[in-house]
């Protein structure tokens, strides 16, 4: 019993990480209309920058936000330098550009940090918490707390602020929002930086558990992406639900079936969802990006 609870809890914690990455995917997909294959690399950047800063004596409370800012700045650079200029190109071309960006970022990280793993201390010291016989490292609570706080903040941002309305307006109708004085190009910049920051946050909070390496972004990005597809790719709440479900399923599969096939679970789910319900598991009616 306690074993099953253990699987459930660590699955939810993993789901929290996937959720942060997945919401980044959804943000870029909604505003730019493309699948951003570089999403995972921002998690890697966040984790590695934070680890380096801490190693150089910067306290964690300063290092974590700094790392997230760095990733957001890199995201802005990528949008301005590469994706913005390619705005007129076809979707296929822009999607492949994000693949190129992801390879380049990974390469740059490899030259700066080499292939070593870097640790980050847990955000709060202490022995793992035991709940009904299931032990959970304290960092997992930081992961879940961060994910919850960010989801709430995003909801407020998108739903209750002028900026959020402008962002949603430019998704619905690019031309009409331009007539209302909203710059779609600027919205695209903000959305891409925001999703880079979200990815970096995921990287920073997971680094104490999984260590930071230059290639950590690949799997993290792919899992976040599976979660986003499970949620229909256009809905942030859907992505969060998809991420939690994915985390739990993976955790049970690894514990009960075989750990070698843990990663395959996510992609088998992806294929299943695409074949059976391509609009996402939680959509009542066919959802599509409203352009």
């Amino acid at each position: 019993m306690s074993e099953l609870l253990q699987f459930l809890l660590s699955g939810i914690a993993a789901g929290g990480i996937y959720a942060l990455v997945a919401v980044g995917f959804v943000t870029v997909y909604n505003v730019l209309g493309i699948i951003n294959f570089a999403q995972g690399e921002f998690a890697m950047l966040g984790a590695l920058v934070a680890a380096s800063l801490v190693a150089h004596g910067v306290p964690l409370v300063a290092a974590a936000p700094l790392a997230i800012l760095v990733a957001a700045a890199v995201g802005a650079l990528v949008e301005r330098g590469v994706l913005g200029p390619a705005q007129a190109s076809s979707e296929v071309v822009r999607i492949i550009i994000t693949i190129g960006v992801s390879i380049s970022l990974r390469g740059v990280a490899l030259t700066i940090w080499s292939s070593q793993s870097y640790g980050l201390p847990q955000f709060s010291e202490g022995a793992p918490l035991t709940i009904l016989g299931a032990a959970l490292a304290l960092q997992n609570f930081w992961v879940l707390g961060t994910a919850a706080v960010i989801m709430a903040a995003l909801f407020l941002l998108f739903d209750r602020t002028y900026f959020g309305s402008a962002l949603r307006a430019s998704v619905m109708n690019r031309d009409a929002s331009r007539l209302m004085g909203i710059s779609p190009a600027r919205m695209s910049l903000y959305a891409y930086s925001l999703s880079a920051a979200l990815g970096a946050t995921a990287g920073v909070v997971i680094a104490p558990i999984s260590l930071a390496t230059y290639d950590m972004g690949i799997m993290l990005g792919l899992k976040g992406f599976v979660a986003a597809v499970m949620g229909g790719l256009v809905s942030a709440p859907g992505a969060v639900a998809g991420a939690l479900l994915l985390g739990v399923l993976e955790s049970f599969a690894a514990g009960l079936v075989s750990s070698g096939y843990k990663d395959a679970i996510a992609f088998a789910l992806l294929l299943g969802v695409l074949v059976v319900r391509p609009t996402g598991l939680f959509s009542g009616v066919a959802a599509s990006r409203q352009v």
Partner: protein
Amino acid sequence: MSRGELLGTGLLVLGLAALPALVNPYLVSLMIIVGIHVIVTTGLTLLLGFAGQISLAQAAFYALGAYGSMIGTVHLGLNGWVALVAAAAASALVAWLIGVPTLRLHGHYLALATLGFGIIVYIVLGEETEITGGPTGASGIPRLRLGAWALGADRHYYVFVWLVALMLLLVCRVLVTGSSYGRVLRALQASEVATESVGIDVARYKVQVFVLSAVLASLGGSLYAHYLTVISPSEFGFDVSIEFLVMAVIGGLGSVWGALAGVLAVTLFIEALRTVAPLLAPGVPTSEYEVIAFGGLLVLTLLFFPSGLVGRWAHRPARAGRAGRAAAAR
């Protein structure tokens, strides 16, 4: 085919035929791999260029071909050609199963599905040790025999691989330009909506192109396995799919010749990098530069030459041709 294209093809064949006499054994073996990559990339060029769809599983179909040939010849004792055809048929079936549900939808669902499929294949290759040999791979794959002609020596295999590659390129070239089937594909390339509006089942054509691309990849995989005789999962990972994608995009997606140009350009680029990089920064493993250079090359190509190497080159004669004809009419 235009006169320029015929001339170019003739020169290419002559150059390829003369190559083994001129260069060292390393380059011959490199060119065998290039020939195999051309076969695999041609499928992707057709898929990206004409169906407008991204596949991130080209390496997985390449793996199905290679492992299919390995299992057929080593485990089941089949004839190499029988195994090759069986592997290609299995790849076609798998591609059809993935393509039918995902290509009915608008958008880039094929990219998502193939991403998942590619990674699952890679994981299975590493896990099913009894069948695939696990992470260390499998060995003892026999060389192919063509009647009395054993394709053992590199030079023989080189001739064979390039004959197959050029034949497939020409067949694909004729398919997209010289047939009514090709007219539909080119219409699809110009406008999917317009093609659909004249009553053509767009999804069916996309599925067929995807199946063709998978069969070409599988064929390339079989040839690869029979050449190296040893295969392991790391040669068929996600990054390899990306590599094929880079080759197709850099070559250009408007014409099947793009595959040839792209594979040659990327191979030359990597070889040059391996020679130059150690001189610039001694002690740093070249693979580190390869990663950055690959990504950079991809992004720059798409920004500045979105139609690739062949696109730049092929569009000019076409314009000149029209202008010439207009002048003649006057």
